[in-house]
């Protein structure tokens, strides 16, 4: 009997996880877009979407319906088969990459022993969707967007890969689950051991997901909409979905590698155990805010909606609080790491995406030659030095018995010194070098 249950679990848990990811991701994407519009509006002192639902909370659903019933136009001279299949490649690659992610210790489709390489490699295949879509549209803007995208991705993937290698050296494994456990055993998240690596990964991952300030493949002022100029309706929505899926993927990689995955802050310190109450407290706070805003809504339906939303948040708070009761925890010991792990993981992913939005609305777009220079002359050399620095720190720590607190700050300082020199040399070269007709 026990063996049968084990067998069923081994088959059904990954299947259910996969269905949850495929089913929930479009919805999550919609709400990330809403969040982005709201953050943008806030930074520009506007309100953002307010019409559909209270505070625009139903806007993503309205947008999705609009996109689904819009006409799907295929240009006359386009290569139809490739035009048709290109967005699917992007979406499939993004979703496939999610299968190796460990969202909490219990929510993972497959724990591959090449997990992290799998995520990085498969999500990189999404570039074919962009490139082929841009080519098959038979439009100059699309083609230019696709070319820029391919060049940008190839350039920045090296830097991102080397930043990942640095953290992998610390973890000593490629499996996403074991990377997180390694950070637990280690005592700190890898961002504190390799801050330069994290910085490189942040910059490179923005470039890889084609987001501002590196959104040259779809620069509106130059290329209309880049590679998706000719796309409309559902296929355009698929590209959008792929883009935001990729954002979630890179945020998850950064969370797993540098931010401790599903681990609570100060996971190993009993003095900080009160942080276990944080998930419930946050949910109660959000729920209470919804209830507080409810009577202020102009329409009766909206008031009701806000009430229900507030109560739903209270419900989630209750579920998150359940494992903190001693008796429940004894009965289902796996509940707490599972639920709270997923909460912390998603919170970290959300914060990372928020950081992306923040950068998007703060910095102006780079020029293409600036982008290439930053990638090849600053980030790639720096990422190689970073790997060497981490290697040196590990040698000092493991072979020569230095403590963490001396080895890692020392090598980080050395890496920063190199970074300063690279930046200074680049700037000096800039002043001597005049670009003529170079783009």
């Amino acid at each position, binding site marked *: 009997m026990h063996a049968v249950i084990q067998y069923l679990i081994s088959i059904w848990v990954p299947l259910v996880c996969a269905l949850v990811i495929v089913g929930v991701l479009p919805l999550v994407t919609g709400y990330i877009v809403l969040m982005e519009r709201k953050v943008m509006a806030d930074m520009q002192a506007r309100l953002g979407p307010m019409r559909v639902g209270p505070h625009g909370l139903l806007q993503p659903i309205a947008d999705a319906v609009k996109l689904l019933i819009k006409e799907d136009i295929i240009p006359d001279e386009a290569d139809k088969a490739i035009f048709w299949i290109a967005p699917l490649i992007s979406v499939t690659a993004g979703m496939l990459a999610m299968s190796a992610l460990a969202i909490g210790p219990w929510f993972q489709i497959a724990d591959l*022993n090449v997990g992290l390489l*799998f995520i990085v490699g498969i999500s990189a*295949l999404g570039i*074919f969707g962009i490139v082929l879509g841009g*080519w098959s549209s038979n439009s100059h803007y699309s083609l230019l967007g696709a*070319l820029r995208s391919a060049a940008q*991705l190839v350039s920045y993937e090296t830097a991102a890969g080397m930043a990942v290698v640095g953290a992998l050296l610390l973890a000593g494994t490629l499996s996403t689950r074991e990377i997180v456990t390694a950070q637990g055993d280690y005592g700190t998240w890898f961002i504190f051991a390799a801050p330069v690596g994290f910085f490189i990964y942040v910059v490179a991952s923005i470039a890889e997901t084609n987001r501002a300030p590196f959104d040259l493949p779809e620069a509106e002022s130059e290329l209309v909409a880049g590679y998706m100029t000719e796309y409309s309706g559902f296929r355009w929505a698929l590209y959008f979905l792929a883009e935001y899926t990729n954002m979630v993927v890179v945020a998850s990689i950064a969370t797993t590698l540098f931010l401790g995955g599903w681990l609570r802050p100060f996971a190993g310190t009993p003095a900080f155990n009160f942080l276990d109450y944080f998930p419930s407290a946050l949910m109660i706070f959000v729920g209470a805010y919804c209830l507080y805003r409810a009577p202020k809504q102009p329409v009766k339906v909206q008031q009701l909606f806000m009430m229900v939303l507030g109560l739903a948040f209270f419900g989630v708070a209750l579920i998150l609080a359940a494992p903190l009761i001693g008796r429940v925890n004894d009965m289902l010991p796996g509940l707490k790491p599972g639920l709270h792990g997923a909460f912390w993981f998603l919170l970290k992913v959300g914060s990372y995406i928020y950081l992306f939005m923040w950068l998007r609305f703060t910095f102006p777009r780079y020029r293409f030659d600036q982008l290439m220079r930053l990638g090849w002359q600053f980030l790639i050399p720096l990422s190689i030095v970073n790997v060497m620095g981490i290697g040196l720190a590990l040698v000092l720590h493991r072979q020569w018995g230095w403590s963490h607190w001396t080895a890692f700050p020392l090598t980080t300082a050395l890496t920063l010194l190199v970074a300063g020199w690279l930046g200074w040399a680049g700037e000096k070269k800039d002043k001597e070098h005049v670009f003529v007709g170079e783009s």
Partner: protein
Amino acid sequence: MLDQIVFYFFAALAAISAVLVVTRRNIVQCAIFLITALLATAGIFLQLHAEFLFIVQVILYAGGIMVLFVFVIMLINLDISLHQAQYNRQWWLGLLLALVVGAHLILAVAVGRSVLPFGEPAPATMLEPSTQIVGRTLFGEYMLPFEIASILLLVAMIGAVVMAKKKV
């Protein structure tokens, strides 16, 4: 059973798309079929529990080299290549030679099946964890060949940079 179905699926996919790479006229479609062939090979690696080889195949060939291929193809004027002859006049000779070599291979396998000794398949646990084993072997037993290959690649890379560099 399931293993065999998966294997034949990937093998057929690889073989068919490899044929299509040389027979299709449109060069972008050729590139797509080449990607499919490479990914199907990667699938066979995965089925053999060689996860590291699988992901290296995906990252290097499909994700790296083929992106550059497609990148270059897009800069070419496709109309010219569409109107050029796809094969030269000796294509039948090539086909004949390919058939002879293929027949040889089939014959060798058919005859060798009963004569040559087949080793017992290694238990799957022996190759776990495959990534660590690859790493240990590369940086332990085969350190020198690995370093020589790295230096060769480095020389090729520097050579390419020097040749592509504009005169300053």
